[in-house]
């Protein structure tokens, strides 16, 4: 019951964010990114959000120009993972204020912040959006406080 990795991919197949919950070499990671990039953007809009790939399942969803792609074990619940993606996007939307691809590219720290508050080691830790937002806001405050001191 754990997510193996999360990859944010643009429609053109460019990587926008990655988080790996399994240990892999850069080579293996790149191989996975390549495979995923070759597969997911080609899927048609009405196809289902699950695709089996080797010994795991890939759950993905497209939001505007970005694909959110997760890999889980075969016996995992697909829809739960799909909803974790949905929750992640919702929280980012609130945290950035109408999130778009560029926000994530230029401000990837916040995207990681939110992710870390949502998931630890591939396992969901908090399902409440307001809890996560509260926590992220606290951290942001800490950061901006620090930069004012400087």
């Amino acid at each position: 019951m754990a997510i193996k990795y999360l990859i944010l991919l643009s429609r053109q197949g460019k990587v926008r964010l990655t988080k790996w919950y399994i240990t892999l070499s850069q080579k293996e990671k790149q191989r996975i990114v390549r495979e995923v990039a070759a597969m997911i953007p080609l899927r048609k809009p009405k196809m289902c959000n699950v695709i089996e790939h080797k010994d795991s399942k890939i759950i993905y969803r497209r939001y505007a120009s970005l694909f959110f792609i997760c890999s889980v074990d075969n016996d995992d619940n697909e829809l739960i993972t799909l909803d974790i993606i949905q929750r992640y996007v919702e929280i980012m939307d609130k945290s950035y204020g109408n999130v778009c691809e560029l926000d994530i590219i230029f401000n990837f720290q916040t995207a990681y912040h939110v992710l870390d508050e949502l998931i630890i080691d591939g396992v969901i830790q908090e399902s409440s959006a307001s809890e996560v937002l509260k926590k992220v806001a606290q951290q942001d405050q800490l950061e901006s406080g620090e930069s004012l001191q400087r």
Partner: protein
Amino acid sequence: MPPQMKGLVQFITDIRNAKEVEQEHQRVQSELIHIQKQFQQSNLSAYHRKKYICKLLYIYMLGNDISFGFQEAVQLGISKNYSDKFISYIALDLYLQLDPTLLPLIIQSLKRDLDSSVEEINCLALHFLSSLSYDSESAEEFASSVFKFIRSPTASPMLKKKACLTMLALFKSSIELLTTNPDWIARIVPLIGSDSLGLSLSACSLVEYIARFDHDACRPAVILAVDKLYRIVVKGECSQDAYFYGKPAPWLVCKLFNLLETMIPDVTSSDVLDTDSLHKVKEIISISITSAVNNQNGSHSSEVKNTSGFVLFSALSLAAHIDPSPDQAFKAAEALCSLLETADINSRYLTLHALSKIAARPDNAGVKAITNSFQIVFKFLRDRDVSIRRATLDVIYVICDSSNVESVCKDLLSYLAIADFAMKSDVAVKISVLAEKYAKDAYWYVSTIMKLLSLAGNFVEDEVWQRLIQIAVNNDSIQSMACQTAVKYLRTGNYPESMLKVSAFLLGEFGTQIEKTCPGVEQFYLLYDRYFQATLSARSRLLPCFLKFYCRYDGIRPQIIDLFEQETNSFNLEIQQRALEYSKLVTMNDKHALLRAVVTKMPPFTSRSSPLISRLGNVEGLKQSFKLPDVPQISMLQDHHQNLIEPLQVSKNTGRAAPPPPPSRHSTKPGVLDSLISSPPSRMSSRASSRAATPLNNSGLMNHSSSGLFSNSENRSTSSLVRPHIPVFSPNWEEGYYRLVHFDQGIFYENSIMKVVYRLKREKSTVHLQLTYSNKSPSTISGFTCTLTPNCKSVTDPGYTLSTIKNPDTMVYAGERTTQMVDVVAKSIYTNSEVPLLTMNYICGGVTSTLKLKMPTVLLKTLVPGAALSKDMFFTRWNQIGTNLGNAGEGQKIFRANRKQTPANLKRLLELAGFNNLLDLDPNPDNLVCAGILHTTSANSACLLRLELNPTDLVMIRLTVRCTLVGLSNVIVDTLSDLLTNEL
């Protein structure tokens, strides 16, 4: 929003603006050189250091390797600034993934951050710890610091939930942590009942993992999970914030379902759920399913459908564990079939998956329902979404059995012609396994596989045709037919190469059997004509085949010798060596004596399992996800056994021991043949042994399935960490224990937080217990569980059984109370050391506590007063027991009471114990004589008792008991003497 770093933004913009890969690459390289230069400066400010590390992170994400910067990341981590630390940890995470040996270099600063008084910094350290991969040594080192957060009364729920998941990561890398810290589990489990849903969620994941290894220690989790679910699902106690698309706390609900599934591995473990909880669970499931189905059908958004869908499928999965009747499975399968035609593609995919799960149940109940919708299912093989096609193929595979195998294989073969490239190999493997598994007729099997090869020969795995060869070698009866079929396909001239390989083997080995219809020479030319168009791997199979032909037919020898000579110049080593060896063999001057010694008949294969099973992927795993009682499964195993082996291996293997295998020269893939030859233990015996070793795991259906599945089932079944349970009771347990051995109700235990009142009602062999727990503290007690565990010496034939009538609430508010009701049924004699143990876990004011008490439910509690007896009758019976049973019927003890007793006191005590005091029977008025009847479900026993108190010191007592049931008198003597010597 944190402030942005200008340089970083510029860099990212540059990368984005790069039109070509080359341009991006150049920009990255120049930046790397720049950063390296900057890092060499001695007076680099923290801000710049952070900026450059951010750039490195971005460069790494783009897919480039990073070879420097570790020192700077460490430096950055020393800073007191939160954002510096945050970036530093992201970077360190990356460097440690690249080189785990760096860990010792940062242990100190990591520990400092764990000990920090700033919660945010603890969190960062925990996040970092969770992402590392450890050896067991460093896992041990960090585990206690992480556990400190879980245990701490002051740590916030947020910190605790992170600590739980970090602990999960630690356990995953080193499960020994559980053995070395057995007391941790009792502290972790109550967190499931926490008010904070996030903490509850995290604790669930952790406990679910622990339960796979130490099932028993996690038992209290069942009650907590049921209670939590009941609150959320049935009572609707869930804050608005936790609702997600109309579902209350869906993640937590599913995690709890999952946890219950792990805790209830199969229906035989029904003792995990008492009737009270079982009732609640059924209510929870039925509400979840109804509301989810409603959401599925309406015109809701896809998010609503997804969310209700995942709750629905989790609930269905749990329902199958709780109520596994075949009838239920049939209904479920039928309902799912009706969902098949839904427009929502995700639902369709999941429905197909659920169907294959249900159909894979060993009782086959679901198969019938699906067979009715067979046409619809088959239609989905032509869906445009590959995910749907694959799922459909799985369903078809699972519902195939000996009754429909021929039509299924036929349909699949015709599908094979139009299947896309990605699916072909999968379809081929499945046809091949199905054909072997359910074939009723060996001829049909051969023709099916040959057809498969001719249709999809270029896509099938080598194992498919290798298996055909194995079976042909082991079955005399089909050899000629196989050769004929091969010739038929060869004559068409249009066939894939795997057909050539199979034919080469078959004709080389058994070609003589069909000489009448197809002369050997023709056979040879059929193969020979294709030789020069064949690939190297086919050639290396053809060469030994030609060697065999060389032995048989004189006419073609020159041609074969020519070929061998020619191939001695082959650029391929394998071919060259073969050709060289063969040409030496045939030209040797020994009248072919050596040649004949080398070319012998193929010995039968000893491996009975198909190498294809490992290629089936996840389908076989389905069979393991349900574990049903032994009975249906055994009959099914036999079915399987017969189907799999008997029709195909008819005559040959009986009576003839397999000779040692020949050197496997003609295999370019030694791995496959080796694995075939090194004979594994036969399927039946290994299954038997695995069953004996792990009684919980009766899923040894496919021992040879892929290793991933197997390890999974092992994890679930064997509680590998069996620890001896030596009860250590909480301080001051004796007072309440002896009070309630003496009386039937009273205060059982009391401390500053809670008070336990014990009430007992006797009804023949059953004792009704009611325990009332009152919260004395000013705060709420949460995560409260009380478990009674039997402590009988014999597990198979216990002296008593426990059944829970009502569990206490898991939350007790200040000043309130909750009750627990348990029935103890005495089955036969049990001693005082075998009484049940009561374990209480609870959290109060953030502190987790555990209490262990010995239950005063001694056997004597089933005693009721006997009828009044006259003096004569009493002594007649007393003597009867003496003559009939001798010493076995009597127990006697002389002991010193711990305080002065009076006859009146003792009389009262014996009355309370359940005896009828018979007055004026004993010549000495100070002596007491009593009678009673003790009930157990196996037998009732008359008990006669005589107690003599020394009238001078009033402490020395002689107690004599005679009972009609052998062994009982000693138990009664022990109970009473224990009470009189120890009561406080």
